[in-house]
């Protein structure tokens, strides 16, 4: 039986359809030829006997090319989507875990003249039932006021043990710090739903790839998801400790007042960076471990 060729996938505006009767059967071969703008098609009629053998082969090639291109493009999009959701999901996991872990240093909310800063949750007056420290600000980045007529850094003398130097900073630095803190805060508010949604999408996509059953892809993605959360927690704890030590070390070079805020800044940034980095490493490790288990000979 002669093949039935359907050229519908070729864009219509570039093609003209011809129906060629097939003598062996009652089927019709539909052939589409490209229209050249400068040459009207009707002026040079083409014999069906000449056209058929050549066109059949070129149409097959064209269809295969298109099919291959489509498949590649689909794979590329799927890969990009998978990578994108993995990056977004792991970053969100890092930020979320950083919020959940007990942190000594937290962001100071913008209030009054303060744009941002860091708060030591283990300091301050002991209040409440059960009694616990209410925390105290350690560093504040403030706008200019009547007394200190330029944007400045305040360091809490009760925590540093030395008088507040009211170090001057530029308005640009103050704006940048405030903007960064707000961005982090805003992302922190949506981190948990973002992490959960990306995990769900990744698992759903893997489940679908396995033909709607728990197969190799689902198991590996589950390993990656679990590894991401575990990695974020481990990375966050290690990062906060490492960051605090490094920050105190660097801060000590800026005189006696530097070590305490250095440790706070190092601990805060180290914890956040550790959580995010840990989520990526954990995700990758979880994926590798799941892969080796799934692919192990039985």
């Amino acid at each position, binding site marked *: 039986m002669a093949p039935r060729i359907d050229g519908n996938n070729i864009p219509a505006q570039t093609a003209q359809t011809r129906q060629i009767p097939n003598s062996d059967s009652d089927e019709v071969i539909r052939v589409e030829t490209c229209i050249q703008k400068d040459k009207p098609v009707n002026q040079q009629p083409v014999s069906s006997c000449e056209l058929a053998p050549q066109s059949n082969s070129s149409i097959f090639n064209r269809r295969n090319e298109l099919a291959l291109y489509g498949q590649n493009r689909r794979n590329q999009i799927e890969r990009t989507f998978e990578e994108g959701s993995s990056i977004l999901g792991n970053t969100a996991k890092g930020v979320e875990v950083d919020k959940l872990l007990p942190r000594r240093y937290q962001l100071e*909310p913008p*209030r*009054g*003249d*303060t744009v941002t800063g860091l708060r030591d949750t283990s300091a*301050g*007056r002991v*209040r*409440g039932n059960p009694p616990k420290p*209410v*925390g*105290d*600000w350690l560093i504040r980045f*403030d*706008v200019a*006021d*009547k*007394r*200190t007529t330029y944007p400045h850094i*305040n360091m809490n*003398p009760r925590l540093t*043990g030395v*008088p*507040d*130097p*009211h170090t001057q900073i530029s308005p640009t630095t103050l704006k940048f710090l405030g903007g960064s803190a707000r961005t982090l805060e805003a992302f922190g508010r949506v981190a948990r739903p973002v992490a959960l949604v990306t995990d769900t999408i990744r698992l759903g996509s893997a489940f679908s790839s396995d033909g709607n059953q728990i197969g190799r892809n689902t198991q590996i993605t589950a390993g990656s998801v679990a590894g991401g959360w575990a990695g974020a927690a481990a990375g966050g704890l290690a990062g906060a400790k490492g960051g605090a030590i490094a920050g105190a070390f660097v801060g000590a070079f800026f005189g006696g007042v530097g070590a305490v805020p250095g440790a706070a800044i190092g601990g805060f940034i180290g914890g956040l960076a550790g959580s995010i980095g840990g989520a990526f490493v954990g995700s990758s490790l979880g994926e590798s471990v799941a892969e080796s288990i799934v692919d192990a000979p039985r």
Partner: protein
Amino acid sequence: MKIIVKPLKKNGLSFGFDTSPVPTMRDISNWESIVREMLTFAYLNRPAYLITVQPQEWSLVNFSPDAHETIRENVNGKPYFFYYQNACSAELLENISVGDEDFKRALLWLISAEKNEKSKIYEVIRAMDESRRLFDFTPEVETEWLFAGFDYAETVYWYNPVFGIDEILQKLSDSAQHFDIELDAMALEKTAHPPKT
């Protein structure tokens, strides 16, 4: 260290310590004691609203025994705690003046008012909101209102005090003397007794 007393525009005064050169830890501690004494002098056993601007979980009124009576209100898009006390206790005033960061940063105000006089609170909030930024210019209010700023309650602002200026100066002078601190009230005296032309 020196305490400087200045008049406020209409009726009131401010007193603060000189922050140049940078105050020592001892200076800050002495100043806290003076503020405690002044706050006790001003509000002990008197009714007042404690207003917290943009309250946080560590704000003082959250830890008071009757914290559940605190009203949270949004005024002009900014959150406030309204906490009423019909007789301010010495303990409460000490908690405010020593170590309360909201009070030190001008985020906790004391406003003399009875429980049903919330309009006075709105008047103060409106006056404060109208100033472009805190302390840019002196808000004009009719209500008795006390608050402190900037970083360590270095300056205390007392609008429409119920006490006479002389009484307040006497109390300040006694407190300053106790800590062997100089009191400079020249600016205030010039306003109270302008030179005859």
